[in-house]
């Protein structure tokens, strides 16, 4: 072991893997997918900073269009001799499988680092389990599993060494989120360690196998029945040698670094009788439990699987104590219909082969049971581990069990005592409840670093985020202790709980997790003298019962005073250090300030000073509360959902909302992933501090406020005056100003508990108060003051009938806003630029729409549990929604269209066959209906209703068939929605095919010009000069003109729209696209938080995009060519502002001026040239003469 001084670092698993990967590779081809994206981002950042690998050259990092593309690029780079890697997870890994077979078949050395994640089945999950890696078992790749962050770094290197020697490619995997995102204090490998593990001779051999015209060979032939089989068997010796090679690398690693690993590591009593076998982070929980049980003299142990493939049965059996009597094999995956999960089957096979081919080492053939645990990051705690050990003690053991859930359907689950704990008293366990926007998580990551650097303590940080993108809460779980921390589960017995937002007191019962005598820190708007009386009863109860040390600070006031705005992070962090005692107070303050300087130093002295001021002011404003020993509160927690909610909402949805989803038994959940619509209306989030208030005196009834509302929380109705009479006293209404509903009442109403307070409606409101122009017809007011009153008004508003769709003039903005939104209260970001388009589609066609939604932001705010925004109208109709995958969405929607077209065709055939029974009248009227507008659709629905009444009387097979298909005779609209990552990149091939098909589908691209959902990676829509991940130095080339590509087919309706620039053009384009009997593509400019803008002014950002020529508005309607007209119409005017006036309103462009001012100038100039070139090109397109030659000579 060398004497090298290695640095201790506080990093997460992704960074640990990326560190080694970047040091040991030359080419890195990647594609973002949660939870692996950060690995590629780290490598991209390091390469852009000029950081070199161990051979002194900077690795190339290339972002591809999909994981399939990344694996193809990796394959090519490997075949030409470069050391190459990639990072992925979940569906991404599945897309790599075809290339993985090839890479293994060609015995090519590489390591793919995988943060293992669930695969979408009945639902998508971004969280961790082994479903993805288990799907690759047959590819011929070696599979090495890391169990904690230290191992991630170590095994990344061991696998790199082993792949070069064995020629078997490796998947190096670790648990998504639990390990990939867990921050731990680990020892960083030194460059000399890495060099010592890399064998130059093997690298030379790798290069010598490369394709080169200097020594040409053929690789990748097509083989026939005569030789394929034999050729497939040629690789066997390599697989036979591989386990020993890995062990050799582990032994070498031990010599160099000092940590010894084995293919299978046993930990526990030498005379253990009960042994658990598993791999991944769960083994840490088992390890910890084994320690605790052994202290009580129990004979238990754990076999940790490191090398899962090739599975060395010999080494595996050797790992067990001979005393082993019963074994539980745990799989973090599910293979429905299998004889057991993969690891279980391997264990059974190994034991059987040992038993049948050699003398057993065991005193008796051990009993083996298999079980599933931890799917989708489900908790796996020592209590559960003990439950499994207890099961192994039983005479009759349950096989194929589950642990950690209540399976009341298949009765697979094991019982366990949830109160069992192994947590030691010398470990500080802290919980922090914060808002995403208040910086809590960042501060906690920082605290781990401080404690890691300033003390000998080991630290662990794990962060839980909620499912919404607006007003999201975060819970940070931090442990600090004298030993490496193996507690890979959430904290349930905290000795410190911090509540960073007062409103959480009424949302979470956070003190159930605190131990007696623990410390509770509360960010309170009330001073220490008055805070007690304002606490909910349940909080008072627990403080008294548990004799808590209770501290308060008005963090928000300190934040405002010191210029921190809504960021209470530094303030609450300082409080933690001041009262937790992890460090002496003075040392802690110094350390925080040093850390502030380090973190913010280059971001500007002002930021440093502001944070320093916050630290100083904190100490002065932090107080211990001397509370009475009596309950005084009358505040109780409100019910999660009202009593009148449907059973499913009460029994399932409400539990998920309350954070008690883990307790929902199997039988309560839908069997096939089908959920009711409209569930967001039950979840009252109350996240807005301010909401709009309507001042009808100045309102011009334009409807723009409702149009732009991202969350459908501001609504408009026009209705019979009589209804206004019985309204609540504060309910506002005014006479309708137009002729079409003359004499009726008009109301704009806000849903006070659903509004996110983005303020976009107020921003776009054109009607100023003429007496005081700082006010408008809509003004933001504090929500708490008006909440109760507006709740009543909103409830009353909902009872007012919706507009009769037949009477609405949908050609006007105000008309469209009389239509009920069937997409409401989504979890999208506050001020989202995508959702207004989605909502508009739901208003215009929602009652006859089927949505195919590509994975991404829109599938998350559209379909992430617990509650979803797509809803139905009072007739029970509304959009039916589904998400297939990321890459296949156009095809998915196309399939829907094919199916619907076939159903209509068949229904029409049946109608004709049934003319003798039905009569020509109704049949012909149904068949001839064009259904061009709401009136015609309504009439067709009435006809179909009539038809359905007639059919039961006709007792023929045809009538029975037609009964099932009758509804298809009412026109259906297929909407294929997704972001630019899907449309421009991963799904482009499919999108291209679908628009070329001629079928009537409507494709809505919510174009944010970046991968928004995964955190701002560059797409082919990203404009020149914008900074994005994988374009950290500013994207050097211009964006793809997807619209122009689509136009080249000639039969595709194409429109480029931006609601904030021209709302009427948006409305027109969406309606024309839907009306066009063929494929339509709408590119909708969507402002986004990934642009770095004030989201309240998002619509203005859209206007600047259009005014500068960055985003010209146009419509290309092929139907016009039949009339001899030019199908291409430019809807925006010549650029009237400089491009920089648009760009430098947004941080994505502006940050380049701070990083590399010269490059920023160059790219801006080029982008300005792009704009003008494109504009001139479009102008020419718009000026083309489409008249027939004859007509042209006639002077047309």
């Amino acid at each position, binding site marked *: 072991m060398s004497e090298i001084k290695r640095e201790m670092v506080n990093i997460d698993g992704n960074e640990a893997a990326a560190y080694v990967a970047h040091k040991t590779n030359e080419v890195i081809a990647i594609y973002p997918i*949660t939870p692996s994206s950060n690995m590629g981002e780290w490598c991209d*950042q390091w390469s852009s*900073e000029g950081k070199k690998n161990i051979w002194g050259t900077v690795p190339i990092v290339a972002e591809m269009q999909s994981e399939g593309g990344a694996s193809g690029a990796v394959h090519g780079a490997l075949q030409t001799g470069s050391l190459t890697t990639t990072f992925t997870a979940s569906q991404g890994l599945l897309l790599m499988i075809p290339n993985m077979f090839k890479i293994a078949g060609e015995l090519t050395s590489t390591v793919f680092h995988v943060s293992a994640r669930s695969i979408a089945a009945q639902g998508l999950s971004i969280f961790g389990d082994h479903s993805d890696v288990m799907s690759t078992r047959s590819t011929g790749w070696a599979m090495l599993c890391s169990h904690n962050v230290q191992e991630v770094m170590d095994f990344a290197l061991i696998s790199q060494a082993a792949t070069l020697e064995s020629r078997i490619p490796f998947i190096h995997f670790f648990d998504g989120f639990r390990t990939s995102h867990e921050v731990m204090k680990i020892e960083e490998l030194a460059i000399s360690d890495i060099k010592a593990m890399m064998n130059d001779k093997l690298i030379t051999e790798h290069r010598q196998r490369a394709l080169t015209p200097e020594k040409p060979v053929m690789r990748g032939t097509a083989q026939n029945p005569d030789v394929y089989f034999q050729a497939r068997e040629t690789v066997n010796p390599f697989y036979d040698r591989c386990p020993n090679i890995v062990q050799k690398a582990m032994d070498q690693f031990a010599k160099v670094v000092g940590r010894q690993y084995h293919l299978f590591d046993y930990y526990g009593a030498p005379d253990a009788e009960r042994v658990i076998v598993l791999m991944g982070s769960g083994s840490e929980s088992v390890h910890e439990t084994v320690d605790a049980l052994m202290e009580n003299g129990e004979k238990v142990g754990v076999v940790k699987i490191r090398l899962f493939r090739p599975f060395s049965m010999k080494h595996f059996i050797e790992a067990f104590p001979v005393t082993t009597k019963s074994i539980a094999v745990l799989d973090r995956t599910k293979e429905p219909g299998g004889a057991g999960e993969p690891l279980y089957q391997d264990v059974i096979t190994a034991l059987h082969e040992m038993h049948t081919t050699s003398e057993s080492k065991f005193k008796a053939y051990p009993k083996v049971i298999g079980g599933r645990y931890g799917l989708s990051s489900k908790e796996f705690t020592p209590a559960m581990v003990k439950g499994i050990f207890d099961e192994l003690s039983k005479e009759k053991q349950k096989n194929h069990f589950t642990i950690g859930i209540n399976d009341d359907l298949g009765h697979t689950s094991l019982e366990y005592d949830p109160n069992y704990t192994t947590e030691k008293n010398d470990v500080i366990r802290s919980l922090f409840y914060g808002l*995403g926007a208040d910086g*809590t998580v960042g501060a906690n990551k920082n605290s781990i670093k401080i404690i890691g650097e300033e003390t000998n303590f080991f630290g662990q940080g794990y962060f839980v985020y909620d499912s919404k993108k607006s007003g999201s809460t975060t819970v940070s779980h931090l442990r600090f202790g004298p030993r490496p921390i193996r507690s890979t589960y959430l904290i349930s017995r905290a000795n410190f709980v911090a509540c960073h937002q007062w409103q959480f007191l009424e949302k979470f019962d956070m003190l159930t997790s605190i131990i007696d005598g623990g410390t509770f820190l509360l960010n309170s708007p009330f001073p220490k003298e008055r805070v007690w009386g304002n606490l909910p009863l349940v909080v008072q109860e627990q403080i008294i019962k548990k004799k808590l040390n209770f501290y308060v600070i008005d963090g928000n006031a300190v934040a405002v005073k010191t210029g921190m705005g809504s960021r209470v992070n530094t303030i609450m962090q300082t409080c933690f250090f001041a009262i937790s005692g992890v460090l002496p107070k003075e040392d802690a303050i110094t350390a925080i300030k040093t850390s502030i300087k380090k973190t913010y130093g280059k*971001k500007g002295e*002002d930021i440093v000073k502001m944070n320093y001021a916050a630290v100083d002011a904190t100490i002065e404003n932090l107080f211990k509360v001397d509370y009475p020993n009596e309950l005084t509160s009358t505040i109780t927690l409100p019910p999660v959902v009202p009593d009148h909610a449907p059973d499913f909402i009460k029994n399932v949805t409400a539990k998920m909302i309350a954070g008690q989803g883990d307790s929902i038994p199997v039988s309560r959940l839908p069997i096939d992933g089908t959920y009711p619509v409209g569930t967001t209306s039950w979840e009252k989030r109350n996240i807005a501090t301010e909401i709009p208030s309507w001042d009808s005196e100045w309102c011009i009834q334009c409807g723009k406020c409702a149009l732009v509302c991202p969350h459908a929380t501001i609504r408009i109705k026009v209705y019979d005056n009589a209804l206004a009479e019985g309204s609540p006293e504060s309910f506002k209404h005014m006479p309708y100003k137009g002729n079409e509903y003359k004499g009726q009442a008009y109301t704009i109403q806000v849903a006070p508990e659903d509004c996110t307070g983005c303020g976009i409606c107020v921003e776009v409101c054109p009607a100023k108060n003429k007496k005081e122009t700082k006010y408008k017809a809509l003004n933001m007011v504090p929500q708490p003051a008006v909440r109760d009153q507006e709740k009543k008004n909103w409830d009353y508003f909902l009872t007012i009938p919706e507009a009769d769709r037949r009477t609405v003039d949908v050609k006007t903005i105000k008309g469209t806003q009389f239509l009920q939104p069937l997409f409401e209260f989504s979890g999208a970001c506050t001020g989202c630029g995508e959702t207004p388009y989605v909502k508009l589609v739901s208003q215009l066609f929602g009652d006859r729409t089927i949505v195919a939604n590509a994975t991404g932001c829109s599938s998350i705010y559209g379909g992430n549990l617990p509650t979803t925004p797509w809803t139905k109208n009072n007739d029970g109709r509304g959009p039916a929604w589904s998400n297939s995958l990321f890459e296949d969405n156009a095809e998915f929607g196309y399939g829907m269209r094919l199916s619907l077209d076939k159903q209509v065709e068949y229904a029409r055939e049946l109608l004709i066959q049934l003319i003798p029974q039905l009569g020509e009248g109704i049949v012909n009227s149904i068949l001839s209906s064009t259904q061009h507008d709401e009136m015609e659709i309504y009439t067709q629905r009435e006809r179909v209703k009539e038809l359905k009444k007639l059919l039961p009387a006709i007792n023929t097979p045809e009538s029975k068939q037609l009964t099932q298909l009758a509804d298809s005779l009412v026109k259906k609209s297929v909407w294929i929605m997704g972001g630019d990552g899907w449309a421009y990149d991963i799904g482009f091939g499919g999108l291209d095919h679908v628009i070329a098909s001629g079928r009537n589908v409507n494709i809505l691209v919510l174009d944010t010009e970046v991968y928004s959902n995964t955190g701002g990676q560059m797409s082919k829509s990203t404009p020149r000069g914008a900074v994005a991940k994988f374009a950290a130095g500013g994207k050097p080339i211009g964006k793809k003109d997807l619209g122009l590509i689509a136009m080249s087919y000639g039969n595709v309706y194409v429109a480029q729209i931006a609601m904030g620039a021209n709302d009427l053009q948006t409305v027109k384009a969406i309606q024309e696209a839907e009306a066009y009997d063929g494929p339509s593509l709408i590119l909708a400019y969507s402002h986004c938080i990934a642009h770095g803008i004030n989201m309240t002014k998002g619509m203005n950002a859209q206007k600047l995009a259009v005014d500068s020529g960055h985003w010209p508005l146009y419509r290309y309607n092929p139907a016009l060519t039949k009339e001899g007209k030019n199908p291409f119409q430019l809807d925006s005017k010549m650029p009237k502002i400089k491009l920089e006036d648009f760009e430098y309103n947004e941080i994505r462009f502006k940050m380049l001026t701070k990083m590399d001012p010269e490059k920023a100038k160059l790219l801006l100039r080029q982008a300005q040239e792009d704009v003008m070139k494109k504009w001139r090109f479009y102008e020419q397109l718009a000026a083309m003469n489409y008249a027939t030659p004859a007509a042209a000579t006639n002077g047309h």
Partner: protein
Amino acid sequence: MDLSTSYLGLNLKNPIVPSASPMSRTVGSVRLMEDYGASAVVLYSIFEEQIRHETKEMYHHLTYHAESYAEATSYFPEMHEYHSGPDEYLNHIRKLKEAVSIPIIGSINGVTDGGWVEYAKLIQQAGADALELNIYYIPTDPNMSSDDIEQSYLDIVKDVRNQVSIPVAVKLSPYFTSLSNIAKRLDKIGVNGLVLFNRFYQPDINLDTLNVEPGVILSSSDSLRLPLRWIGILYKKINADLAATTGVHTAEDVLKLIMAGANVTMMCSALLRHGPRKIREVLTGVQQWMVEHEYASLNDMRGSMSHQSVADPSSFERANYMKALQSYM
């Protein structure tokens, strides 16, 4: 023909100095102004408020949405290079000092006491030859007296003067109760020059949007009258040099201001309208006029038409208004 002059202790080849404007934002355009004869350049102002705002804005957007959602713990790559605060401005000074040989005068608009001094020191370190303090304050608070305002001007200038060794000029607004008095007090604390006057953006009302919109209207020769009067009045009454800005468009404008007592005449609107070549045109005009009227040097004419040199000093005073009115009729 001697067009040379001295301003802030700098010997300049002629009196044409482009004043603070966007034209000094690129090295290329400063070089062009030099080529066309500019004798020095006042750089565009570095606005402390803007820099602070930008720093905080960047910090806000890079952090506000981070760590809020499991799939996207950030939305931007980490910035490995960060030219924060006044870095860009200071680098610009350094580049200009390498690229041109004429003096470079830095310009600051601060908002905090510390800000003025901090930026002044940085600008000096970056190599600027002199400094112009672009002080303005719109007193909207009726509780604030003219004394308070004047004292704040004096405090800023004193602080900066004590901290830097390069010459310091102050760009003033004309809206002082007693301009002569404030000029004298500034002079007393060692200011090297007064720049008369600052042209403010003035608010306008947009009747369509009912918004107040600030806008700048380029000056014309008519705007020259105000600095002409005050330069004429202040000439020789204070030690500080006098720079005329606002309304310098033609050779005649330059000549008049020099006669009133200006050391330099600063141009902005004319250059924005006609480009840097306007400098050469004006200089040529000045030379021609001097030839025609037999002046050998500008120093001969400087102050010849000042308040103290003219036969009728009252022409610079209130009566002048009545006279002008009468002569117009």
